[in-house]
């Protein structure tokens, strides 16, 4: 805590000395370079369950840093690049990476093309999810913006076409279509989550490599004639292969190990609404995500045959939230949100923890209840979250936020930091998460 206070004080003092505007070099109109940046430092604490970091002990491994440069090269051409680093518990490790970097050729207002690495379109806020000062809350609702998926859906490398279609009295329709590759890091949230899932099916997985097959994303935003109201729908389709060394869990009647090529396809869509009216901001979003898992084990062992016999399995997740914020003054805004997420849309109450209803094992002799034996409880199937945020704009470039989450359920939590000494999952159903965050930008 002492070091955290020192860091925040340092950030505040740094902020006082920052210019109110960007740093600019050269000509303002063409060829000049503009530099912007931000630094965020947060603190997390929970009474039960670890939220991506070891929050039960309190954690300051929650920060972001970004700096970008951009230049308008000509009437139509613009280039830019942002370097970004973050820590959220076990994710990020503070290593700088290219967050986005692309050339943008805007041929007409209704059509332009970007080539490079772009922020991936998903819902209303995915493109700005790393930039704390651009929203009221500290965490976006996890039902739609799962932190475990952040590294994969943050950006897409490839190409994008986009534009704004002016429709007169009907408003403006903006579109974006992106194609290319996303990242599936071996130590990232997606691979970690899949490893946890396979453990429940009796397969202990040790991922060796990943390979993205393709990624596509697209979105429409309708700026309606009703001032402040925008409606949006987005979708993504991502597919990747993972090479993993798999070993049979002790409870399986097929001992052994095998080299497995695991193919995962995720197709997600969102429907979103945002309404700005005076000091009020209202937002609501829905997200559905359909997974297809296909595993191919090499060899002809009983364990390999067990894996291959599973064929393609599907899983549908679902999440939605509503949020409202009210700005009382230039320097203070309060917000509240309610969010629900279900890890399996067809098992909202976690009843698949009962072996008689679990299709994976119902016909496997000698297998009891792997989910239950692994510590799974009903409440690991959902996450319901009531959150309240107080945002203080200390200056136009200096934001401080306090946030509380009353949580019910434990879905999306990382299993490795929520397990007991025996390695089994050990979560609590009702818990509270506190977050504080300060951001300085220029």
């Amino acid at each position, binding site marked *: 805590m002492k070091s955290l206070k020192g860091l925040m004080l340092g950030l505040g003092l740094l902020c006082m000395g920052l210019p109110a*505007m960007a740093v600019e070099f050269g000509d303002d109109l063409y060829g000049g370079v503009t530099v912007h940046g931000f630094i965020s430092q947060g603190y997390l604490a929970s009474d039960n369950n670890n939220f991506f970091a070891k929050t039960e002990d309190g954690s300051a491994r929650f920060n972001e840093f970004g700096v970008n440069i951009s230049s308008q090269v000509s009437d139509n051409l613009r280039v830019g690049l942002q370097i970004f680093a973050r820590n959220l518990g076990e994710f990020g490790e503070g290593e700088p990476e290219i967050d986005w970097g692309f050339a943008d050729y805007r041929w007409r207002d209704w059509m332009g093309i970007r080539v490079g690495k*772009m922020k991936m379109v998903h819902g209303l806020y995915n493109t*700005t999810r790393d930039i704390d000062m651009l929203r009221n809350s500290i965490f976006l609702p996890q039902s739609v913006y799962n932190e475990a998926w952040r590294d994969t859906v943050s950006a897409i490398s490839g190409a994008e076409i986009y534009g*704004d279609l002016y429709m007169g009295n009907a408003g403006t329709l903006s579109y974006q279509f992106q194609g290319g590759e996303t990242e599936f890091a071996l130590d990232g949230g997606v691979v970690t989550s899949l490893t946890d899932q396979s453990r429940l099916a009796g397969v202990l997985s040790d991922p060796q490599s990943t390979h993205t097959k393709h990624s596509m994303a697209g979105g429409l935003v309708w700026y309606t004639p009703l001032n402040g109201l925008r409606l949006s729908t987005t979708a993504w389709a991502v597919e990747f292969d993972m090479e993993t060394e798999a070993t049979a869990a002790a409870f399986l009647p097929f001992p052994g190990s095998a080299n497995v090529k695991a193919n995962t396809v995720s197709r997600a869509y969102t429907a979103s609404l945002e309404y700005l009216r005076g000091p009020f901001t209202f937002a609501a979003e829905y997200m559905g995500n359909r997974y297809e898992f296909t595993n191919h084990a090499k060899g002809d062992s009983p364990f390999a045959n067990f894996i291959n016999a599973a064929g393609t399995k599907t899983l549908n997740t679902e999440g939605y939230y509503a949020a409202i914020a009210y700005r009382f003054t230039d320097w203070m805004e309060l917000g509240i949100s309610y969010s629900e997420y279900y890890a399996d849309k067809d098992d909202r109450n976690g009843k698949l923890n009962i072996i008689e209803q679990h299709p994976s094992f119902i016909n496997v002799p000698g297998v009891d209840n792997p989910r239950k034996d692994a510590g799974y409880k009903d409440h690991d199937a959902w996450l319901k979250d009531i959150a309240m945020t107080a945002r203080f704009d200390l200056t136009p470039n200096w934001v401080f936020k306090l946030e509380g989450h009353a949580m019910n359920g434990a879905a999306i939590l990382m299993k490795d930091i929520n397990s007991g000494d025996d390695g089994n999952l050990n979560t609590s159903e009702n818990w509270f998460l506190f977050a504080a965050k300060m951001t300085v930008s220029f």
Partner: protein
Amino acid sequence: MKHVKLGALILVMVAGLVGHALADVLIIANRGVPVASVSKSDLERIYKGQLSRWEDGSRVNFAVLRGETMDSFLSDYVKMSSAQFDQHWKRQVFTGRGQMPPAMNRPADMVTYVANTQGAVGFVPEGTITDEVKVLGITP
């Protein structure tokens, strides 16, 4: 961009009757800008970054004047508060999709910027000396 192709006399009348009736704000443009008036919806789209070309294909450049005039202009024409406007452009900046518009602190600075910047449009309070630029009429 829609341009109301009326005769010069009608344009002047529209500018005089409509443009000055809406707010105590003058819309000014570089003398090379190929229009004599601009619609409210086009102004809104310009300041949201959705309209980047004049009707002859040349680039639109725009700036803001900080203070009460900005609050009034944004409320009347862009339908945003100053805080919402800043948030909107910060989103563009930090996702690489746009550049924060130049911000002026004095009306005279805005006039100078518009006068010296090709394709530029801006706003100043009524009473500002605008000899170096042209004042655009506003159409509904």
